[in-house]
């Protein structure tokens, strides 16, 4: 292994046979961006159909396929891989490690994804159409009444899950084993902490999802009766298993986003993160509590009252550590000398809009009230506030924040700020009205609606189109930065940024920290 100061390999093999964490991170990021465009185009179909009441463009079956694939692709193809990509790029650089702990497995985790999602998207062209049962794939819609393409969907989930588990094991091994001397756990950047906890959640619940789809597979092809009451099973069992995975899953999506915001807000407030220790404990308790609240998605399924109460109070309890986090971010900004570059704008946008999403979550957590809200557009509004304005805004902030470090070029600040303001406004135009139509009773996943919802839906569609288009501006900004952005060479791209990643050269060399730094 003498010849270690190699640069990247030439040509395609650099990517196909990659072992370098930065290359693999880059592939993850581009993959998730392309999935974001694909899933986004499905969302455009949905909003076009809902632009006006009545059946407009697509038939109901296709509409259902759109909502299903939009959800699946955004959750499993766009958001999750994007944060894994970020973890790949940043964790070794943040803890002073030469690479990820298991570099070849790292590449395996990535290369499972493209064929998997190609297969998933291709189900649209199969006989009987693609999955049309919603991203939560409740049985028996996804078993007895599903198109044959469901089998490909099942194996797709298996592969995506395998990729996540291996990616997470890699992250856990890296964080636990590869920290530079002196980098104790309680000195790790918050992003590393949140990812360590996220990886634990992933290893714990992805196998649960695998179990759920395996039972579906057996019910469909081999005559078992897990989800069939006629044989002594229960369709509600599916919902329990799914949400035992599903609720931790939403924290899997949001915790790394919390980590990103905890890096960015201090940098642009020029103050250390307020209450670092409490942030760590809050993240850990959110993760542990997330195993105890799954049935808040099932209040209307006919649970015993004791169950309703237990899950209601447990859910409300999560608001406490979440509140601690929001409080700490706000306090970090308090009396900071703040500037508002694009990453900070997105971080503040995150803070405001995620908090709104947290509040609607709290409303939904009240079991008797949820009988009214459940499966209405109110829920759709809730989870888009936490997943789009939460996870995705934070991802956007992260890209603007670290892009200069990655490629040694500065993005166009004016274009970035324009991107932020269009996104922020159009996001709210798209999703805020959905609270109203939801409260007034408009159900989700239906291609048509009653006339009184027409105005708000048209607003929502316009907002969604603008939001979708404005993301192309982001793509353009990123690509033009990589190709022709203003070169920079300061190690510390941002004046207030702290952490090991800002001590290496800009752009970050192919190999960093081959000899670990000493952390004081």
């Amino acid at each position, binding site marked *: 292994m003498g010849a270690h100061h190699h640069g990247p390999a030439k040509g395609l093999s650099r990517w196909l046979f990659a072992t370098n964490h930065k290359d693999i991170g880059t592939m993850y990021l581009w993959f998730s961006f392309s999935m974001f465009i694909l899933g986004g185009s499905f969302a455009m179909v949905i909003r076009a159909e809902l632009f006006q009441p009545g059946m407009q463009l697509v038939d109901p079956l296709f509409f259902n396929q759109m909502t299903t694939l939009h959800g699946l692709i955004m959750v499993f193809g766009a958001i999750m891989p994007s944060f894994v990509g970020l973890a790949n790029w940043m964790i070794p650089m943040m803890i002073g490690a030469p690479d990820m702990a*298991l570099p070849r497995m790292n590449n395996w985790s990535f290369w499972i994804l493209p064929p998997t999602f190609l297969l998933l998207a291709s189900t649209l062209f199969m006989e009987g159409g693609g999955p049309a049962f919603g991203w939560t794939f409740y049985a028996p819609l996804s078993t007895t009444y599903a198109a044959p393409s469901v089998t490909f969907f099942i194996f797709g989930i298996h592969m995506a899950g395998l990729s996540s588990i291996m990616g997470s094991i890699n992250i856990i*091994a890296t964080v636990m084993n590869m920290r530079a001397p002196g980098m104790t756990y309680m000195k790790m950047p918050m992003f590393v902490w949140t990812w360590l906890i996220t990886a634990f959640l992933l290893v714990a619940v992805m196998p649960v999802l695998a179990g759920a789809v395996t039972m579906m597979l057996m019910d469909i092809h081999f*005559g*078992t009766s897990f989800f069939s009451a006629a044989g*002594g099973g229960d369709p509600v069992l599916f919902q329990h298993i799914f949400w035992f995975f599903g609720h931790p899953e939403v924290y899997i999506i949001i915790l790394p986003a919390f980590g990103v915001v905890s890096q960015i807000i201090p940098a642009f407030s020029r103050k250390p993160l307020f209450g670092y220790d409490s942030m760590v404990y809050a993240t850990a308790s959110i993760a542990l509590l997330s195993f105890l609240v799954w049935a808040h998605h099932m209040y209307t399924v006919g649970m*015993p009252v004791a169950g309703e109460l237990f899950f209601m109070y447990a859910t409300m309890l999560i608001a406490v550590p979440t509140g601690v986090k929001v409080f700490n971010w706000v306090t970090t900004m308090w009396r900071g000398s703040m500037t508002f570059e694009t990453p900070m704008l997105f971080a503040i946008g995150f803070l405001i809009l995620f908090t709104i999403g947290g509040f609607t979550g709290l409303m939904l957590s009240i079991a008797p009230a949820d009988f009214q809200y459940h499966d209405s557009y109110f829920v759709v509004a809730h989870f888009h506030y936490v997943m789009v304005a939460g996870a995705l805004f934070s991802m956007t902030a992260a890209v603007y924040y670290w892009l200069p470090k990655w490629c040694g070029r500065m993005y166009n600040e004016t274009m970035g700020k324009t991107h932020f303001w269009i996104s922020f406004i159009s996001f709210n135009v798209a999703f805020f009205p959905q609270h109203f139509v939801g409260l007034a009773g408009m159900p989700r996943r239906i291609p048509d609606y009653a006339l009184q919802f027409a105005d708000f839906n048209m607003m929502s569609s316009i907002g969604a189109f603008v939001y979708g288009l404005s993301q192309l501006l982001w793509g353009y900004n990123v690509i033009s930065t990589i190709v022709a952005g203003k070169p920079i060479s300061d190690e510390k791209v941002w004046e207030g940024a702290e952490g090991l990643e800002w001590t290496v050269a800009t752009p970050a060399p192919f190999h960093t920290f081959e000899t670990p730094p000493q952390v004081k």
Partner: protein
Amino acid sequence: MTPQTSTEFEKYYVPEKSRLALCAATGLFLSLFGAANVMNDMTYGDPSVETNSWTIFLCGLFFFLATLFGWFRTTIKENRAGLSSAQMKKSYALGMFWFIFSEVMFFFVFFSALFYVRNLVGPWLSGEGDGGRMNGLLWPGFEYTWPMAITPQEAMGGAASQPIANNGDFVSFEKSMAISEASAWWKWLPLWNTIILVSSSVTVHIAHSGLLADNKRKFNLWLGISVLLGMIFVALQALEYYEAYAHYGLTLNSGIYGSTFFMLTGFHGFHVIIGMTMLLVQWLRSVRAGHFSAEDHFGFEASSWYWHFVDVVWVLLFLFVYVL
């Protein structure tokens, strides 16, 4: 492979580019894509139409297994060439530990399903408690027992007599695997299987202590015995399945008892086969190539962790599937 002292820094080995991952991803994808096609042919296909689903599946599987073989070979070679530092070995150990944890969670789902069905669904279907409201409408006459000897559908007089909420024919077994139905305790296979698997865990432990004492003869002998015990277990398990299908009328279609029984024991059996293969490979490495020493035997150690895990799962299975 000099042991590392804490003060010196050893470079962490980051492999240059490698084809393994891409091949593994391709093999995995092809085999699962093929498997999905095989199942769809079976359930929805036209039997008179020839397809190449099996070919895709088998080629993919072969390619996948060959890649895994090559992968482990490479890792072992690297270790023997002294490339893996103590730190790297810790990465492997962490990787194995968390992999086993994910497997634990996989079994956790199936056990949870079993408990949920036995404690809640069964009573509800027969009209008890909060969930019992539908009994009179959908399944009048259904009474819950475990093992569930009569499915709700059969209580109604078969699939045809209950047009809603029916999605299959669920024909219950004549005899279950529970201890209560065994003719004599010593004729009851699961008991023997338990004894065999638990002793194999002990023999693996003896092998390990032999290795730690640098006694390779003892190691080879006891590891060989463990693998043999594993094989006997698998054979007996196959015999049990044969009995179930041929004589007990107990199949995957026997309602929820058959579903949980076969899925839990089936996945466990599959894991026993994996664990046994792992141990067998370690045995071959030791006997044929002279690998392993008291200080350097991670391959064996990881396989033995896996074996103990499989054993613990069996003990739980024995308790909750067969005895209670």
